[in-house]
């Protein structure tokens, strides 16, 4: 299940959804708002999304991960709106019988989300400037 969230991500609830008796491994990735980017001081971020398409594309990535790797469950939630330094921007969690598949799938999901899902980051810098990132 992929979700776009306008409020703080409840990671404990997500982790509980992944807990299955068959699962021996759970790997999570958390993306936090960093206080810098390429040596510029960042004070906050604003994430914008094309929510309906992001939902479809995010769900597609999770389905790909489930078919490529021997995993039991996968979840991803991405925040939108204004986030302060230290806040959780994106959470990925994967459970599996064995850890190798869980690491590979978690890595795959965050890589693909960053490449493909229509979400954009506006960085607000300490000097008052800001800019949308279009890498």
């Amino acid at each position, binding site marked *: 299940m992929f979700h776009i969230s306008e409020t703080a991500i409840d990671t404990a609830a997500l982790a509980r959804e992944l807990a299955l008796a068959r699962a021996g491994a759970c790997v999570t990735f958390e993306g936090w708002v960093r206080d810098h980017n390429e040596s510029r001081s960042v004070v906050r971020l604003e994430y914008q*999304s094309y929510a309906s*398409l992001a939902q479809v594309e995010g769900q597609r990535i999770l389905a790909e991960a489930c078919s490529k790797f021997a995993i039991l469950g996968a979840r991803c939630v*991405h925040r939108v709106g204004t986030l302060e330094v230290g806040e959780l921007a994106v959470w990925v969690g994967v459970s599996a019988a064995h850890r190798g598949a869980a690491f590979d799938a978690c890595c795959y999901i965050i890589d693909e*989300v960053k490449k*493909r899902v229509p*979400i954009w980051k506006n960085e607000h810098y300490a000097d008052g400037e800001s800019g*949308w990132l279009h890498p």
Partner: protein
Amino acid sequence: MTYRVLYFASLRDRAGTDAESVDLQAIDARALYAQLRARHGFTMGDDRLRVAINGEFVGWEHALRDGDEIAFIPPVSGG
């Protein structure tokens, strides 16, 4: 033909709106973007964008129909 066009991120800032209805003739998404680029002064070429029609990614040569909702997707930066 009337299209609904959605703008995001730097395109939204440049257009000054998140969406607009436009009354134009364009055989495909590429032609539509060319016209809107001229209108709003977008600096980004279509080689840097993807296009989605009615909520699905499509190719630039996708034919447009009256009432289509079109989004030009700049390089994403989530995560």
